[in-house]
Structure formats: structure tokens, C-alpha cells
């Protein structure tokens, strides 16, 4: 929402359990280490929970006004419900990263929006780590946007995951790069 220079507002959304929260935190952590202004905001829409989760990350060069993103530049939609809810809010000229493993329909969006269709769950499963789907998504997103590098994200991984999960760092780093690769090559 700042106008000077760069300001990237992302929504990441999916089922609870798809690692939405860690994906968002990784993005924020990476941005912080890169010296950017950044905010991260979890969804806390209801005290009671349904099956969905989302979070909002803003990366900018100037102080950030509001961490609540109403109209994102980019949406990472990990399932259909998320696409339905947030898809229409993407700003013209924005980016949609769409998990075709769980979304079988074509999104009906503004033509100016770039759509990256990627079978996120399948790619993660191929790596032998279905729970790393979130990392595949981040990798793909970063490749498309380019404001932070997948390598920087991989370096931030240890700060996002609790120590007891550190054995998963290598596979998550791999997943990040797999996402990048797919986004770059379309396969």
C-alpha cells in the first residue's frame, strides 16, 4: 500500500495442516534477513476453527501501513476453497499460484493476472515428502516474483522450524528448489 518503490502483498491460503503458516513465516523471515520491511499476519477470523487457514505477508521498502491484505498482488491458493475466496481479490496484473493437485477448475479471473498452475502436492509427493508442499509453493512463487531468492529462503529455514524438526530442513530446501524449477521450466 506504500507507493514509493516496491510493495508486495501476498496471501497464502489452504486447508489447515497444509503448512500455510510456516510458508508465510518463511517468506517473512527471508524478507527480514534481506533487510526489507516486512509484516506477517495470520488469519484469526473466528475464535472457532473451520478447515481453512490463511496468512498475509507484506514485503516493502518503506514502512508498512497495514498488515491486513485486502487486495493482494499475489495469491498462493493451495485448495479450491481458497481460490474461490481470495481469487477475486487479486489486483490486476497480479500473480496466482494455483495448486492443481487439488484444484481441477479453471479460475475465472481478470485477464491481466498471471496464473501459474502447478501440481504442488504431486511434486512434493514425488520428493517423498508430501508435507513439503508448502515449500514447493514458496519456491514457485519466488521464482515468478524474484524479489527474494529461493536460496535466501532455504537459508532462513532453520529459523522458521523448531529445532525438533530440523531433520526436515534438507528435504524442505529441495522442495523449495523443485518449486522454483517447475515455475521456471513448466515441469
Amino acid at each position, binding site marked *: *500500500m*506504500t*507507493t*514509493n518503490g516496491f510493495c508486495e502483498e501476498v496471501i497464502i491460503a489452504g486447508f489447515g495442516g497444509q503448512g500455510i503458516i510456516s510458508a508465510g*513465516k518463511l517468506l*517473512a*523471515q527471508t524478507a*527480514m534477513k534481506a533487510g526489507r520491511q*516486512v*509484516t*506477517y*499476519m*495470520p488469519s*484469526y477470523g*473466528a*475464535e472457532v476453527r473451520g478447515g481453512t487457514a490463511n496468512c498475509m505477508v507484506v514485503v516493502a521498502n*518503506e*514502512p*508498512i*501501513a*497495514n*498488515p*491486513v491484505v*485486502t487486495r493482494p498482488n499475489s495469491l498462493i491458493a493451495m485448495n479450491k476453497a481458497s481460490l474461490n475466496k481470495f481469487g477475486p481479490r487479486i489486483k490486476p496484473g497480479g500473480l496466482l499460484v494455483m495448486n492443481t493437485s487439488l484444484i481441477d477448475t479453471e479460475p475465472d479471473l481478470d485477464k491481466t493476472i498471471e496464473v501459474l498452475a502447478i501440481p504442488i502436492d504431486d511434486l512434493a509427493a514425488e520428493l517423498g515428502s508430501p508435507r513439503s508442499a508448502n515449500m514447493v509453493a514458496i519456491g514457485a512463487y519466488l521464482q515468478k516474483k524474484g524479489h527474494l531468492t529461493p536460496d535466501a529462503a532455504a537459508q532462513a529455514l532453520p*529459523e522458521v522450524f523448531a529445532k525438533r524438526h530440523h531433520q526436515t530442513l534438507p528435504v524442505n530446501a529441495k522442495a523449495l528448489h523443485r518449486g522454483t524449477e517447475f515455475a521456471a521450466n513448466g515441469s
Partner: protein
Amino acid sequence: MSQRVLMCGNEALAEAAILAGCDAYFGYPITPQNEITAYMSRRMPEEGRVFIQSESELAAISMVFGAAATGKRAMTSSSSPGVSLMQEGISYLAGAELPAVVVNVMRGGPGLGSIAPSQSDYFQATRGGGHGDYRTIVLGPSTVQELVDYMPLAFDLADQYQMTVLVLADGILGQMMEPILFEKRPGRELPPKDWALTGAKGREQNIVRSLWLAEGKLEEQNRKLQAKYDQIQKNEVLCEEYRLEGAEIVVVAYGIAARIVRSAVSRARQEGMPVGLIRPITLWPFPTEQISRAAEQFRLFLTVEMSSGQMVEDVRLAVAGKAPVLLHGRPGGGVPTVDEILDIIKELSVSVKR
């Protein structure tokens, strides 16, 4: 920690409280500030300090009352409905002149309302929702870093003036993560707590009380409190001014609303509109003088707050008729956007020019 870390507001303020020497935390869970309680439940025992999940907010503020009376630094936190339940206790803290820090991470009301962010407990915080003539110092930070920076100040002010300091945050500030820096800064020099209940050893009995039945005694006590409040009003106002140079319109906003307004002002300036921001940091004592001075100079005031209009009364009191004071209020969990504020500023700029 001398390196930037990414933390949510609730956890950050909790850690800041620990760094500020908070001896005891007492609290009852409520959204959107549960991270404070959870964080404290882990960290306070690590530091050998006291954490209790109380049975209610009544109990929490009473536990604070007890710990504070013995000279300890004690705090609690809650959100709107829970803070309403603390009003009797806060009035007692005022009457007994005990230091305490209370964090209110406001949510939408009235009633159960919602858990969306809000600023609609401003009246309660600044006018005293409890009974009797009393005040609490009220701090209204607008970034996670400020939350961190103002916790030590809150404890110092509480100890210096023997009173409650309320930290007013909101659901967004509590939940959002931002990079922050924990810096150890020197605290204030504070008076000895010779009134504390530590056992009557080598001195006369100490008594902490708020009941004064003898004729005239309670009035005297009240005048003493008012004198203290006057001092604070003179010495402790904090307030940020942004882009007032050459302004004709001044927006007044605090907390999360202020950071949104800041962006709007910055954009409006780029578009050449004569607008600035006054951001009260202490909500009580309110920067009445600053705004009053501004009223001599600028043509129009706009208050932006996430309520139906509460702080606007303080702005009007300060402006005292010298300029129109308009309100843009979003009650019940609504959060203003930069765009909507910009639109209002645009309209006002036109009217000011005419």
C-alpha cells in the same frame, strides 16, 4: 537479543515485559491476546518468576493487586470483555496507589462482539471505566517495535507514579509479526517502594488501602491523586508529529489506525495535498497542548479511529472550537484502508482550498 527477530506483537510485548523485570504475570485466556499468556507460561518459569493462569479476569487483576502491594512488578493482559471485568480492580489499584501494568489487546464490541481488531475501549481506558475519579496512564503503540519499547516505560511509569499503566493495543498489533530489536536501555530512576508490604520488620506497619471514612479524608486523598495526575499531564505526554510543515489539514490517529493514516498522508503529500499527522502516543495524558497549538495554525482536523468516535472528543476538547474536527470512524472490527483515508483527505483538500 541484539539482532532483529521476527515476532508477533503479543509475544514481543511479553518478552519485553520480562526484560523490563516483570516479576509476575497473571492472566486468563482471551482472543486475540492468547499468545501473551502462552508465552508467559513458558518463559516466566524459565526465569524463575511467577506465572499463573487465573480462574478469571477478576482474579487476575486481584493477583496483580496482591503482588504489586509487596513491591513486585506485576502485570496482566486481556482483551475488551476481560478488561471490563477488571474495572473494579483497576479502580482499587488507583485508590490504593499501586503500580501495575495492564495490556488490553482490543477487539470488537460491545458484548461478545467479535475478535476483529478495534479501538473502541478508548473511553474505558482514558476516562476510567471503573468508579470514582481516577486516571490510568494509557500508551498506544502503533508498531510491534513500539510495543517492545514501551513495555519498560510502562513499568517505570507505573512505579514512578504508583498507578496503573494501560497498554492499548489491538488485534492486529497483537497478532502481526514484524522484525524487532530488543535493546536494553537504562530505565528511570525510581523512588524506593517504602510503602510495600514486606513484613513490619524494623518499621511501623504498612497498610495498603483505599477506604477513607473520616470526614474529608477521602476528598483529601482525591486531591492528592489529582495533583499527581496534573504532574503527569505536564511531564509525560508523548506524541509524534508527521509532515505538519505547511499543512492545512491535520489527521489525528493512534495505534494501528495511525500507521495506516501515515501511509495515506505520505501518499497525499506526494500528490501535493497539504496534510499532516499528529499521533498521540500517550492517550492519557492526551497531547492536548500540542493539538491546541496546532489548532491555532491549521484549518481542519480529521480524527481517524477504529470506533464510532471516542478519541475525537479529546481532539475536540483540545481544539476547543478553533477549527472544525471531523471524524472517520470504523467501529466493530472495521479497519480503514489507505485508499479510503486518501479519498477523504482529497475531498477535504478541495474544500479547504475553497
